[in-house]
C-alpha cells in the first residue's frame, strides 16, 4: 500500500494492517485549505500520494507518542474530496458511509476509502510510532498532523472501481 498501484488492487471488504505514513486533518483544517486553494491555486503542503485520516487526537499523555486517536465521520468531509484528489491524495480513512458523490469521486480518481475502528482510540494510539504537527497548530486537535503507524487496522469500504461494502 506504499504506492498507488497497491492501493488500487484492494477490493471493497479487504482487511489490511497498514504500516506507513498518514496525514491527519478534519473539518476546520480542510475548510482553511479550501480557502487557501481558492485564493492561490495551490496548497501550503504537498499531498501527492498521501493518505488522509479524518481525526482529531486527544492530548498526548506524558511518555506516550500520541494520545487517544480514532476516526471521525467521513461524510462531513465529502465536500473537500475534490480538493484532496486534485492535489494527489490516494486514500482517505474515517468512519461511516459516504455520499454517492464521494463514491463516484473515489472511483473517478482511482482512490480508496478505508474504515478504521471508531471508539477504539486508546488501542489505536499504541499503533502510532511517530507524531508531529505540521500546519495550523492554532487549531489544536484539528491541526494538520503527520503520523507513522504500524499494523493500523483498515477495511476497504470504497475501492478504486467504486465498489462499496454497503452494496447488498
Amino acid at each position, binding site marked *: 500500500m506504499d504506492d498507488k498501484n497497491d492501493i488500487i488492487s484492494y477490493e471493497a471488504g479487504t*482487511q489490511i494492517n497498514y504500516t506507513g505514513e498518514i496525514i491527519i486533518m478534519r473539518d*476546520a483544517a480542510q475548510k482553511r485549505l479550501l480557502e487557501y486553494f481558492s485564493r492561490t491555486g495551490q496548497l501550503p503542503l504537498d499531498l501527492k500520494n498521501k493518505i488522509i485520516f479524518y*481525526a*482529531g*487526537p*486527544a*492530548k*498526548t*499523555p506524558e511518555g*506516550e507518542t500520541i*494520545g*487517544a*486517536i*480514532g476516526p*471521525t*465521520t467521513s*461524510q462531513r468531509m465529502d465536500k473537500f474530496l475534490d480538493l484532496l484528489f486534485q492535489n494527489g491524495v490516494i486514500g482517505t480513512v474515517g*468512519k*461511516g*458511509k459516504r455520499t454517492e458523490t464521494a463514491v463516484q469521486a473515489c472511483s473517478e480518481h482511482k482512490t480508496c476509502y478505508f*474504515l478504521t*475502528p*471508531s*471508539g*477504539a*482510540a*486508546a*488501542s*489505536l*494510539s*499504541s499503533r502510532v510510532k511517530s507524531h508531529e504537527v505540521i500546519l495550523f497548530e492554532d*487549531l*489544536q*486537535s*484539528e491541526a494538520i498532523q503527520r503520523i507513522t503507524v504500524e499494523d493500523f*487496522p483498515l*477495511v476497504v469500504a470504497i475501492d478504486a472501481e467504486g465498489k462499496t*461494502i454497503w452494496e447488498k
Partner: protein
Amino acid sequence: MTSDQIKREMKKAIRKANLEINPEVKPYIDAYEGTFSQVLKENCRVAVEKGMPLCQDTGLLEFFCWKGRELILDRTLQDILDEAVAEVYTAEPFRYSSVADPLFDRKNRMNDTPAMVHLFETEGDGLKIRFLVKGGGSENLSRLYMMTPSSTPEEIQNKIVEHIGEAGARSCPPLKVGVGLGGTSEKAMLLSKMALTESVHSHHADERYATLERETKEAINALQVGFQGLGTGMTCYSVRIMDCATHIATLPLAISVDCYICRTGEVIFENG
C-alpha cells in the same frame, strides 16, 4: 453536602466514564466476533492501563440534575459542574472538544466547557446527577419530527427505524436509542436525552410503550447495520421512550442516540 464535595465526586465519575467501559455494554462487546473485534476488546483494556480515554472524542458533558429545594449551595450547579469538567479535562489526556462561538470563530475553549446543565427541582434536600459524555458523531444524529396527533405507533416506529437505517452507521453502533414523545419540541428533545441515561435493560412502565420500545429495537436490529456499521453483530442495544402530555394539535417525536460505549454515570448525594 458542600459544593466542593459535589465537584469532587463528579470529577471522579466523569473521569471513570471516559476510561472504564460501561459494565452494562461490556458483555455485548465481549460477545462480538466480527471485523475489528479484537481491537475493540483490546481498547477496553488499554484505556484503563494507560489512563487514556476509550474514545478520542471525549465529548461535551450533559448533566441532568434533580436538586432538592431545601438544598442550599454556595454557588450554582452550573459553576460547580463547569469547574468539575474543566479540572478533569485539563488534568487528563482527554480532548478539548468545545469551541467558542459556533459559527464565526469556532475557537477552542481549551477546557471543554460549558457543561450542558439541566436542572429540575424536587422535594427535600438531596441531589441526584446523571450525565452523558456525548460525542459529536452521535450528537449529529439527534432529530426532531413534529408528527401529527393522529400518528399511529407504527408510524412512530417507522420514523425511528428509517432514521437509524439512513444514518446509524455514522454513529458507532450498536446504538442506545433515546426517544422523547409529546410535550413541546424542546421538552421532547430533553426527554430523548434523559432516556439515554436509563439502563439498556429498563423499560417504560406502560406496557404499550414498552411494546413499542421492544418492537422498534427489533426492527432496528433487523437492519443489520452491525458493529462499526460493518453488518455483523447487533445494531441497537435498546430503545427507551420517555413521554409527556402534549397539545391537542401536536405529537413531537425526538430521537437521540448514544454510541456503543455508552459513557454515562449517576451520582446520588444523600441529604445535606
